[in-house]
């Protein structure tokens, strides 16, 4: 078995939180994803478990979006975003992080998703390719394009 539930729990939770921006909902979706994942034993045995787990979580988040399209997003996330950088030391680092945070918020949700998988949850390019159903080469290209966009947004921000 190439996954550890305890380790993956935090990652899937963080991923769901990125989508729903609400602690309790993110936790509910994470647990639902694990229950569905553990239900299907045969799929776990064919060695695609991480991609499968993320696919379930992704679908659950999409369903949540559809159900709650009309509802306003809780402000918990915004509050957290504005406060979490204050603990970091180093003025330049703080400025960069704030720049990056603003830039990331301007990205599409699919682009943010890609960054979270690759840079926050350390999901391999191979697994991302399996989740998205595209080639590894296409994942590399997408990542490169997202990083390029981030760089552009941050560059523009600095000019202003």
């Amino acid at each position, binding site marked *: 078995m190439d996954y550890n539930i305890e380790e993956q729990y935090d990652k899937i939770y963080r991923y769901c939180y990125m989508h729903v921006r609400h602690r309790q909902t993110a936790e509910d979706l994470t647990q639902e994803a694990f229950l569905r994942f553990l239900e299907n034993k045969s799929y776990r045995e064919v060695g695609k478990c991480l991609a499968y787990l993320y696919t379930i979580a992704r679908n659950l988040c999409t369903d949540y979006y559809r159900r709650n399209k009309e509802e306003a997003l809780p402000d918990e996330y915004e509050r957290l975003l504005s406060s979490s950088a204050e603990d970091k030391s180093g003025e330049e680092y703080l400025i960069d992080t704030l720049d990056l945070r603003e830039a990331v918020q301007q990205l599409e949700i699919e682009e943010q998703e890609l960054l*979270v998988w690759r840079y926050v949850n350390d999901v391999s390019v191979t697994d991302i390719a399996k989740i998205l159903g595209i080639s590894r080469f296409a994942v590399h290209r997408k990542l490169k394009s997202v990083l390029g966009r981030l760089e552009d947004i941050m560059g523009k921000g600095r000019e202003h």
Partner: protein
Amino acid sequence: MKRRLKSQLKSQMKMIYEAPVPQGKEAFLQKIERMEKEEWRQEEELSCWKVLGIQIGYIRKWNWLVSVLFFAAVIVAEQSVKGRTLWGLSAFVPYLALMVVAEGLRSTRYRMEELELASRFSVKYILLARLGALGLFQLCLLLLLMPFLYTIRREAILEIGIHILLPWLSTVFVMFLMIRKMHGRESHSLCVGTAVIVSGACMTFGIMNVSMFDLAGAGVWTLLLVSGAVLAGREVYQFIRQSEELQWN
């Protein structure tokens, strides 16, 4: 800029996407642990042989009865009626094969497939158990007939083997091929048709009193027998694999 962005990206992204500490993690992990323990316990309780035993109970009784009656009828007929060719025996064998295939199609015929797909043991395992049990039982009976017929008839064991096994294997192969390629009631009717055609061909050769070695040499028949075994095995395997794909759909 790009290099610096990449080097800082990981740590900064982790900070940006930091989520509040989950509250229910420990309780959930304990629940999962209990569930997995329970699953292991149930799996240990319900071993492969037990599943096979349960499935054997679901195979209709007349399937076993007809197979045994066929076996008994051949023994009685061979001792009382002398000098008949083996074609009569070959003509009945395709119907035994039809029984195996009909057993495999029960889920589809009674529209129970979806329910079985959702059950704990998928339709793949159920089919494997049922087809395996009935198919192997019939094959064993047919193989048991071979030495018996050899002692009575003193004909070549190869000839007896071909007369008994080739119609069974070829019928199984053609039937499963048709079931895989075609769906619905048409395939069921075609299976019956196949059994009738193979049986009819054997019967015709019997009435014409044709020796099998007049039709082809021993080498050709052996090749046909081996090919029949390989192709039938392959088709059964493909049929069961296809049922697994159905589960994914």
